[in-house]
């Protein structure tokens, strides 16, 4: 049996009458780069929000396996987002969510709160622990910012950074958590060809340097196909395919979902949705 870090099983989420995600299940192998793709509105970001506890799954389980020897399993459904973050799941957001009025380094420092020993009184009193922790957290934040190429803008207001730097800052903030699992929501949005190429290298480097498992939601096929080892495809909240990039690329259902062709296999006959999906490739880029 493979060593999986994250296991989703029969996950379902309804918003009123709308099933945003139904019966989705996948396993993310430890140390892999895993892609989650699908046309707009397929439920990819909803899956991220379910994993990180922003939404609570109505049905199904989402488990995080801690030890390499198939040891302890943690159920994430029902946990608060902050507890899930503490368990080692970090994320970035599709629409960048930085702490607007704070500086670049402060944005990263916030994520160091978890690794502090001193409580409120200790911090206000500035006990030895509190000072040591602050020092350690600051040093780590500096290192992360430097590795993201943000060392010279540490004291700048976070929102004064250009778009690409804000995305990198979000990743630095996520890494400050010392996560096991990193969820990236459309990291390539708005990047040009060259930037997307270097993003691919960056994602691999991150995975290797910080011993991460990466799950990627992405529309940019250049990035997804280039960097992911396994890809899971959603459409209308339903799993339509999973496999290696070449398998997924060749899968008729995936082609149908993206291009609106009639599936060559008999198909589940969602004829209604297809005229809609036909227009999607144009709508891909934000």
């Amino acid at each position, binding site marked *: 049996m493979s060593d999986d870090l994250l296991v989703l099983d029969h996950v379902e989420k309804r918003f009123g009458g709308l099933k945003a995600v139904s019966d989705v299940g996948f396993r993310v192998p430890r140390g892999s780069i895993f892609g989650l793709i699908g046309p707009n509105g397929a439920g990819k970001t909803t899956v991220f929000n379910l994993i*990180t*506890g*922003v939404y609570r799954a109505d049905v199904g389980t989402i488990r995080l396996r801690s030890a390499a020897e198939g040891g302890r399993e943690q159920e994430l459904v029902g946990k*608060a*987002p*902050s*507890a899930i*973050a*503490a368990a080692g799941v*970090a*994320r970035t*957001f599709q629409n*960048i*969510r*930085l*702490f*607007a*009025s*704070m*500086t670049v380094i*402060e*944005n990263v*420092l*916030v*994520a*160091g*709160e*978890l690794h*502090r020993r001193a409580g*409120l009184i200790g*911090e*206000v009193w*500035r006990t030895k622990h*509190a000072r040591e*922790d*602050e020092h350690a*957290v600051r040093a780590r934040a500096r290192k992360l910012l430097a590795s993201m190429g943000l060392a*010279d*803008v*540490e*004291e*700048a*207001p976070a*929102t*004064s*950074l*250009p*778009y690409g730097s*804000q995305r990198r800052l979000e990743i630095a*903030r*996520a890494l*400050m*958590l010392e996560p096991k699992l990193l969820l990236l929501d459309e990291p390539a949005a708005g990047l040009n060809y060259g930037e997307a190429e270097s993003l691919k290298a960056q994602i691999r480097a991150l995975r290797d340097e910080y011993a991460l498992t990466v799950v990627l939601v992405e529309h940019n096929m250049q990035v997804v196909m280039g960097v992911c080892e396994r890809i899971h495809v959603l459409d209308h909240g339903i799993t339509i395919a999973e496999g290696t990039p070449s398998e997924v690329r060749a899968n008729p259902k995936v082609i149908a979902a993206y291009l609106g062709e009639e599936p060559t296999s008999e198909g589940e006959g969602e004829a209604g949705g297809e005229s809609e999906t036909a227009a999607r490739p144009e709508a891909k880029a934000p």
Partner: protein
Amino acid sequence: MRRVPAVVLFAIGALTCVGLDLAYDGLVSWDRGSKFWLHILVVCAINVLGATSLNVVNGMAGQFSIGHAGFVGIGAYLGGAIVSNLALALKIPVAALKDNLSLGQSFLLLPVALVVVGLVCAAIGFVVGLPSLRLRGDYLAIVTLGFSEIVRLTVLGISADSATNPLTRAIASLGGSLGYRGPKVGEDYLGVPSVAGPFWTVGIAALAVFLALRLKRSGFGRALRAVREDEIAAAAVGVDPAKYKVTAFVLAAAGAGVAGALLAVQRDGPGIVGPANMKFDKSFEVITMVILGGSGSVSGAAIGAVLYTVIFYASEEALHQLAQAVPAFGSVDAAALRMTLFATALIVVMLVRTQGLFGERELFEKKADDGTPKPPSPSSDDATGTAKEALAS
């Protein structure tokens, strides 16, 4: 920056406050006319404490509370009751209570009262903070306003005639609309003693500013601001918004309660605790101080409180003098004119500096440096975030 040991700082601070206290008494006995101005110092200090504590919840945590006066009121009644009953129990001569008590006597009465008030108000702050977990913005504001009005109306609504059980009798003993005048001794009320001079008021206000500054600069303060900026992003990096928001309410309530207790037993005080202390316009006064100084800035809130108080009293006095000097002004209602002028001044300040006098910065703190030249970016117009936030609050 060189580090001065905290013990030395505290010792210097305590000695300064004792000096202020003795100077107050000395100056008043030398020239009774100075009492008006010296008393402003005491009121300033109490308002600084109120504004500093409100700033923790409104400014740092971004939870808009307009029920601060509720906590101030509870602190005032509770503090007044403890101090006057304690004075009675310690057999401090009743006649002396009508006058200011000495600094020495205040040490017998105040420490217990302030600690109890702080703890009780912290507990109430915890309960009032709970709705902040589900409500935000205007809705939370309405809940906090409701809280302070409930407290005020409870005190007003229960009279000795309608009191039937120990709880209602205890509330009725607070005097309803007449105000609390201490325990009854024979036919007369003892009155709430005037014990808290500059030592206590200025000392505690300074301590509160010091602690609030440290809180803001600690990791805790940073997390608090992160929760204010974006709860979802804060939770995603392991900061539990619930814990931070409720803690902010607890700290603010404790500070407000102590401010209320000091208000009740201030030197040259009224000797009476009235329900008007809890009216919502008192909450708005404190909010005005915080926003005037700059929401989120500790020194801003403190300076806002001092400016507000001084302008408030000084303008009254100035208009009063003017009315006496110039016969044509004799018929002018000084109090009404003052409010008009004051409101105009506030509007001008808010138009010129939407983020308050200090924004979120502190006194002696330099502007966040932008480092590299900014290339045009889709989000560069967000740089005015603080201004928007000030408008939103």
